[in-house]
């Protein structure tokens, strides 16, 4: 406990330099701008900045990326409130109450509530990050290949289930396509080149960053350019800083949304949008009847719940990145990639190999959260002008960044081609309601699954028993089956038949 606090203090103190603080301010502000522009997502922002910061020292680069991540998830609330268009998918629930508040002439109040909610959500998430990372890290030390195989499969299944609630089958397919993409190129045990068909470029594998910039960047550019105009609503910006009484009134909602957001963040690949929706739904269910009627028509509690939930998800999503090297959300996946690029090895050994890094990440989250809070409350009016930049002027510049960003890491034009191909495939798949988060998670988890499944089979000499008898494996297997069977129609029908006679008997 005290050792943790000492390490945290040490980490925080090491960041108290002008250079680091200036980096935190510009990266958070850029994150807010990227987040508030519809079509530019947090994932895209983090992916583009990864390529821009790879020449910096690891701590500076990771700090900038975390600031971008937190800033972008918060920034999306601006366009959700002022334009009724979520800046990032994470802010979709924010539009429900944020925009009606803005229309009622309370845009300033809505922005203030969203900023404070985001700040408190991040703080709650950060506390969980500080408490649970060392704990999970020490538990994860006992994990073997058998557990990692199940974590990979469970990650794909739950991510597909939650990101495609209408049709989880498509989510699972997207996840397995992602796993396949990770199989392309030289494998890590025998150095055998798979699925390259003689291409030297393919034998190096498909890099995560160009694939992500394609699916989240180029695909988004095509989506945004499809329609000609966005209506900009000129709302009055009044008082921004919320009154403490307004926040104290909803303290239960803040804590609940913070905890729920963090928990959802820690589930592999699920992300901020689900965290916001679940927090919003829970707040609505537990609201007083007179407040519940306001949900969807300008409820302060609804706005607070969604914004607290989505920002609490950010530190939550970093927990599995640090402890298991499995990302909790799509932007966290890029963050994981960036850590690997900078020579940091997240995973179960991190608390043994570099415990200070864990506390440095917590300090980075704290600095980013404070920067987001201060910038969020002070730079409201000038930033509203950014929303009025026409998309046809903005998107070519964004595309240039996508191209150079994909190219910069390895100086290969092949990676630019990968970005284009993934962008087009991503756009088509999205049109057919395939979620992209499981695909990206699959690309990350593919390598973990590949090495651990074979390693586990070698250890057990081909016996699949340990996959079902080790306690954590059994738990993950049962959870996976529960998720899959829970969505099957025949199982639902069977359950209804079982319930019906019981209900009849009671009657």
């Amino acid at each position, binding site marked *: 406990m005290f050792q943790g606090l000492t390490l945290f203090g040490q980490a925080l103190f090491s960041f108290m330099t002008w250079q680091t603080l200036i980096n935190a301010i510009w990266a958070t502000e850029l994150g807010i701008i990227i987040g508030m522009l519809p079509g530019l997502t947090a994932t895209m922002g983090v992916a583009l900045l990864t390529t821009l910061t790879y020449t910096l020292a690891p701590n500076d680069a990771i700090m900038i990326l975390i600031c971008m991540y937190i800033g972008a998830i918060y920034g999306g609330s601006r366009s959700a409130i002022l334009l009724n268009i979520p800046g990032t998918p994470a802010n979709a629930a924010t539009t429900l109450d944020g925009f009606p508040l803005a229309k009622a002439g309370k845009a300033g109040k809505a922005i203030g509530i969203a900023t404070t909610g985001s700040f408190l959500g991040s703080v709650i998430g950060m506390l969980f990050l500080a408490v649970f990372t060392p704990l999970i890290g020490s538990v994860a030390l006992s994990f073997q290949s058998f557990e990692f195989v199940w974590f990979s499969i469970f990650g794909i299944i739950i991510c597909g289930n939650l990101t495609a609630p209408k049709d989880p089958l*498509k989510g699972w397919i997207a996840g*397995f396509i992602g796993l*396949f993409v990770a*199989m392309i190129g030289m494998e890590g045990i025998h150095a055998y080149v798979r699925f390259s068909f003689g291409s030297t470029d393919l034998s190096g594998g498909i890099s995560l960053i160009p694939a992500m910039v394609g699916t989240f960047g*180029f695909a988004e*550019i*095509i989506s945004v350019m499809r329609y000609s105009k966005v209506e900009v609503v000129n709302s009055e910006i009044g008082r921004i800083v919320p009154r403490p009484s307004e926040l104290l009134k909803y303290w239960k909602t803040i804590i609940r949304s913070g905890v729920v957001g963090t928990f959802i963040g820690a589930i592999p690949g699920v992300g901020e949008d689900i965290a916001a929706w679940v927090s919003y739904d829970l707040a609505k269910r537990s609201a007083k009847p007179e407040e519940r009627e306001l949900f969807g028509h300008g409820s302060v509690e609804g706005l607070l719940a969604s914004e607290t939930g989505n920002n609490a998800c950010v530190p939550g999503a970093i927990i599995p990145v640090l402890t298991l090297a499995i990302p909790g959300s799509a932007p966290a996946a890029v963050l994981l990639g960036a850590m690997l690029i900078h020579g940091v090895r997240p995973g179960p050994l991190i608390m043994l190999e570099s415990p200070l890094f864990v506390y440095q990440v917590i300090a980075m989250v704290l600095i980013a959260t404070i920067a987001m809070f201060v910038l969020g409350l002070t730079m409201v009016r000038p930033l509203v002008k950014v929303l009025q930049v026409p998309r046809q002027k903005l998107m070519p510049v964004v595309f240039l960044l996508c191209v150079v960003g994909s190219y910069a890491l390895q100086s290969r034009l092949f990676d630019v081609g990968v970005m*284009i191909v993934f962008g087009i495939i991503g756009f088509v798949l999205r049109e*057919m309601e395939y979620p992209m988060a499981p695909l990206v998670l699959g690309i990350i988890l593919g390598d973990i699954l590949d090495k651990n499944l074979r390693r586990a089979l070698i250890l057990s000499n081909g016996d699949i028993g340990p996959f079902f008898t080790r306690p954590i494996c059994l738990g993950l297997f049962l959870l996976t089956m529960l998720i899959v069977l829970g969505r099957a129609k025949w199982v639902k029908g069977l359950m209804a038949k079982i319930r019906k006679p019981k209900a009849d008997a009671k009657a």
Partner: protein
Amino acid sequence: MTDKSMAKADFITSLTLLAFGIAIVVLSIQMPMATDANQSKFSAPGIVPGFIGAMLSLLSFAMLLRSIRHGGASGLAPKPGAVKRLFAQETTARILKTTGLCVAYVLLLGKLWFPIPTFFFAFAFIVLFEYDFKSAFKPQIRKVAMAFAIALVSTALVTLVFQGLFLVNLP
């Protein structure tokens, strides 16, 4: 997409993915066994891709059955004039223009000095989406000038920042 057209799209996609999944399984089986190199047979490089291919086939098959149940297999041939109508839509034209411009730009990279295709891409993108080709040129000079300025500034900034500051050897 309507439910009917989604069922059709699912039918075609599931067939494609099923073929894709089976192809992965076949290619995985053809991969060398690790025993050739005196290693455990369970370390064979085809095991995991084979598993992924099998899972993909299974899931695609489930989607295929569902799409057939929802009528996705019937009336697959497009109605007369449907393709023409699709291409006449403004959204389709905008998607094709965006994709075409971006792909053309990427194809030119490495063949010309980086700032040249970059400037022309940015300029063409803005003009193509902002300029009204049916109206006279004179009242739209400002639009063209603005596109020129944005293209010039963004090209210069991207080139200088990445080449000068981040030391990226641009194509």
